């Protein structure tokens, strides 16, 4: 197989995508997997039924810290249809990390958090396994644990690892204390964000099948190769002995990156019993034993001079995590670069708690960090008597304010200005509580948005068959992001074939490894691999036609060049295949790459009850080339809605006595529902980022959530005059400060 490599060492001045006569890339093409999803024929992990399939139900620890001293399976084993109660030292206590082949923490004798998996009951039906799981008798010893991060914050220590250099632990420059003492206006306050659950609609599920020493696992995973490597390590196998299939994934949001306990349990049980085993987590288990966005306690200290120039930017975060785990919530990520200011400090510390594993959740760091930063900016703008947009414009940096590195592209100012115009920002009253419409106090709020753009190695095989059909194969996944469609669009454009001629096969670890779905990099990394393969195929087709590659046009299945017109099927023989490889290079570090945006919203707060309703929303984003306007807009909406939920309703509540997730279901953990969400106006600016990748595109998937909740909080303040710095902003936190019912001027 020929390899074609695109390595980002120099900018891509000229993308082939800009030479396509009538491109599909950039259009609002409906997703090509849509018909399968709306008819229920897309098959997800739990929807496979190999012969002899039996059902496993996970057992969980009903205490927060200590160890299991005895497991009595006798009663369960005596029940009809029960095949085994499995306890195995290879079982994992925590889920796996988002990268690397290291095994997650194994051994389920010790219990580090409430709800931790401790075994598996297998029976010939789900009903029998479920009933038997209730009859396994546990004896255990509890030990003192740390369950309250805020109360234990004095024990916080720096994180032990900077996660491949992606998460800076501590940076400082200038003199923050001096800047604080000299500032004309200062905000110094603490914002708190709670643990959150990814709560993907599809619970984690695995069907494990062993055959001839090979393990095949139908799983719901964002990055099947990472899952495969970790599962192989856990099981003591070579990666080549494990195959994971995840062609459809019912949502991930970071909660399905590393291998999770159900996959390990299914693999062990299937091996032990010699028959396929399905393990599907209950919703409660998803909440208790997969992962969460860690809670944060963020101190923001911002100072400015009388001219409204920031002189001080300080962001100190305390977060929590299980002992021994390296991931931490990097809440200061965007603070490094969003605004100018000479004296700066960004710091992170971690309290080791006995609570569910902390993992990446959609825009780790930026989502919660910008809640605090963008609210603090709103407060400081008010202290300076400046419009919050004007305040941001005065602090727009020319270059990265810490490193001095230029930005590859940065359209924050345009996003702020266009967003303000689309929303009608100038009609806002700056006085909080001044706008009342009947029983409702009305407020407008805004925030900036920023999300770092990442690039990672990714591979894809593109094959033109003898009949002219084209197949794309990569281990990359589509978790709702639009990958199937975007890759097909790129191929159709670059090879000049009809969309219906393109088959995209995803989520199989036997295919070329990708960077997976995460970090907003899925479309750009896998798309760049496809681009690399198609570029080489164009060279081959040109050579077969005897034309210089720069002179060819591919359209409608035909290659044309001066004096040449040949159907592609005449040029490929029995078929042509190239494996495209996208590799990060110097470009990805020489310049700072970030996607930007601005959010604007109207929130109505009931003057009597404090009930909050988001009534209107506009966001403007700049993220390089938009590959599919329809799916990108959906991604943006999804992020914004996550931000609204995070601002107003979402909170994973831990019992301070045990760390137990109290609200471990969708009835008590409140994600946004239809009635919470108005029409959302999303607009993308025209932009090309030639430094990012050959597509000239940047990441979109996580940008929407960044800052969105801060816009809500700032609007709530504008409506009521109440600053709530402890998220979510539930009405009980507003009631004490609502304006007297007679005070506001009605505009109706």
């Amino acid at each position, binding site marked *: 197989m020929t390899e074609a490599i695109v390595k980002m060492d120099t900018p891509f001045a000229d993308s082939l995508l800009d030479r396509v006569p009538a491109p599909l890339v950039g259009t609002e093409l409906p997703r090509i997997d*849509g018909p399968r999803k709306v008819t229920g024929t897309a098959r997800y992990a739990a929807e496979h039924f190999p012969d002899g399939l039996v059902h496993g139900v996970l057992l969980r620890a009903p205490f927060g810290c200590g160890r299991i001293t005895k497991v009595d399976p006798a009663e369960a084993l005596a029940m009809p249809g029960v095949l085994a109660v499995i306890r195995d030292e290879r079982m994992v206590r925590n889920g796996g990390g988002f990268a690397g082949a290291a095994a997650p923490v194994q051994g389920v004798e010790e219990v580090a958090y409430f709800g931790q998996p401790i075994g598996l009951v297998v029976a010939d039906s789900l009903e029998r396994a479920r009933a038997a799981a209730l009859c396994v008798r546990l004896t255990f010893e509890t030990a003192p644990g740390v369950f309250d991060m805020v109360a234990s914050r004095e024990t916080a220590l720096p994180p032990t690892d900077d996660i491949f250099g992606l998460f800076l632990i501590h940076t400082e420059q200038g003199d923050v204390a001096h800047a604080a003492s000299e500032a004309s206006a200062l905000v110094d306050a603490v914002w708190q964000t709670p643990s959150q659950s990814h709560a993907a609609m599809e619970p984690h599920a695995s069907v494990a099948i062993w055959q001839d020493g090979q393990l095949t696992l139908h799983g719901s995973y964002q990055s099947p190769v990472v899952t495969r490597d970790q599962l192989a390590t856990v099981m003591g196998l070579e990666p080549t002995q494990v195959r994971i299939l995840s062609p459809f994934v019912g949502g991930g949001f970071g909660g399905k990156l590393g291998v999770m306990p159900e996959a390990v349990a299914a693999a062990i049980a299937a091996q032990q019993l010699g028959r396929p085993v399905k393990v599907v987590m209950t919703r409660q288990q998803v909440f208790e034993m997969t992962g969460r966005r860690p809670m944060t306690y963020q101190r923001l200290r911002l100072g400015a001079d009388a001219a409204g120039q920031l002189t001080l930017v300080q962001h100190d975060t305390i977060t929590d995590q299980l002992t021994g785990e390296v991931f931490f919530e990097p809440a200061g990520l965007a603070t490094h670069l969003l605004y100018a200011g000479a004296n700066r400090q960004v710091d992170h510390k971690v309290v080791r708690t006995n609570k569910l594993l902390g993992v990446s959740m959609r825009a780790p760091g930026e989502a919660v960090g910008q809640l605090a930063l963008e609210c603090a900016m709103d407060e400081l703008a008010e202290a300076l008597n400046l419009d919050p947009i004007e305040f941001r414009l005065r602090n727009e940096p020319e270059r990265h304010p810490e490193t001095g590195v230029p930005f590859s592209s940065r359209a924050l100012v345009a996003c702020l200005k266009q967003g303000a115009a689309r929303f009608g920002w100038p009609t806002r009253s700056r006085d909080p509580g001044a706008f009342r419409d009947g029983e409702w106090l009305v407020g407008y709020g805004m925030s900036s948005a920023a999300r770092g753009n990442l690039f990672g190695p990714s591979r894809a095989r593109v094959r033109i068959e003898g009949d002219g059909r084209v197949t794309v194969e990569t281990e990359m996944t589509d978790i709702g992001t639009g990958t199937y469609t975007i890759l097909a669009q790129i191929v159709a454009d670059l090879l000049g074939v009809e969309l219906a001629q393109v088959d995209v096969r995803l989520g199989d670890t036997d295919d070329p490894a990708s960077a997976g779905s995460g970090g907003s990099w899925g479309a750009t990394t896998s798309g760049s691999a496809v681009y690399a393969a198609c570029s080489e195929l164009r060279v081959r087709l040109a050579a077969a036609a005897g034309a210089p590659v720069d002179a060819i046009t591919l359209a409608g299945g035909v290659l044309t060049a001066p004096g040449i017109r040949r159907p592609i099927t005449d040029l490929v023989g029995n078929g042509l295949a190239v494996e495209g490889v996208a590799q990060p290079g110097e470009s990805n570090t020489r310049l700072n790459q970030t996607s930007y945006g601005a959010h604007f919203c109207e929130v109505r707060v009931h003057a009597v009850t404090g009930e909050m309703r988001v009534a209107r929303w506009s966001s403007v984003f700049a993220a390089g080339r938009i590959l599919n306007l329809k799916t990108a807009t959906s991604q943006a909406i999804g992020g914004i809605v996550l931000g609204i939920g995070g601002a107003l309703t979402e909170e994973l509540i831990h019992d301070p006595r045990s760390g137990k997730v109290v609200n471990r279901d969708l009835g008590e953990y409140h994600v946004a529902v239809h009635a919470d969400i108005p029409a959302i106006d999303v607009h993308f600016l025209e932009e090309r980022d030639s430094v990012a990748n050959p597509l000239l595109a940047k990441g979109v998937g996580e940008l929407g959530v960044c800052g969105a909740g801060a816009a809500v909080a700032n609007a709530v303040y504008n409506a009521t005059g109440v600053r709530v710095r402890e998220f979510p902003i539930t009405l009980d936190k507003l009631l004490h400060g609502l304006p007297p019912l007679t005070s506001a001027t009605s505009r109706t």
Partner: protein
Amino acid sequence: MPWIEANANVAVTLTVNGVSHRLELDARVTLLDALREHLRLTGTKKGCDHGQCGACTVLVNGRRINSCLSLAAMHGADNITTIEGLGTTDALHPLQAAFVAADGLQCGYCTAGQICSAMGMLEEWRAGWPSHVGEHAPAEAITAAEIRERMSGNLCRCAAYPRIVEAIQRYAGDEGAST
């Protein structure tokens, strides 16, 4: 414990999408699990198994229910419609086509429930069932606010909400125009 040791199977004939299936089921099998695990009609999804997310919504005699909250053995006399009974990839039901056109889906896991729920919801609207929004006027086209209120039992974590509302509104408008 006799309630567990009892190996009580029940015979039930489920009529799903016009086809009758004679089944011998553990009495504890929910309608949802009967559809997914026994009939392998996996278009209907299990998101929470507690009636909290709506992913398992099916139509029973034309009315939407959470199939996870109902035992299969209770449905011997019923006509059950699942997502597989609406349209096929080659011949989408107009509501399914409206979801694709509006991008009223992302990961696709809640989608069957959203679509079945919308079918039942629009029947409720036409039949004059009230809602909290209180704008009810069945002779008129359903408003976005009514759709949001009446669809709030169907969660979508990808948050395709505005586009689901658009799809339902478009379909309801076309239906209204054609009748």
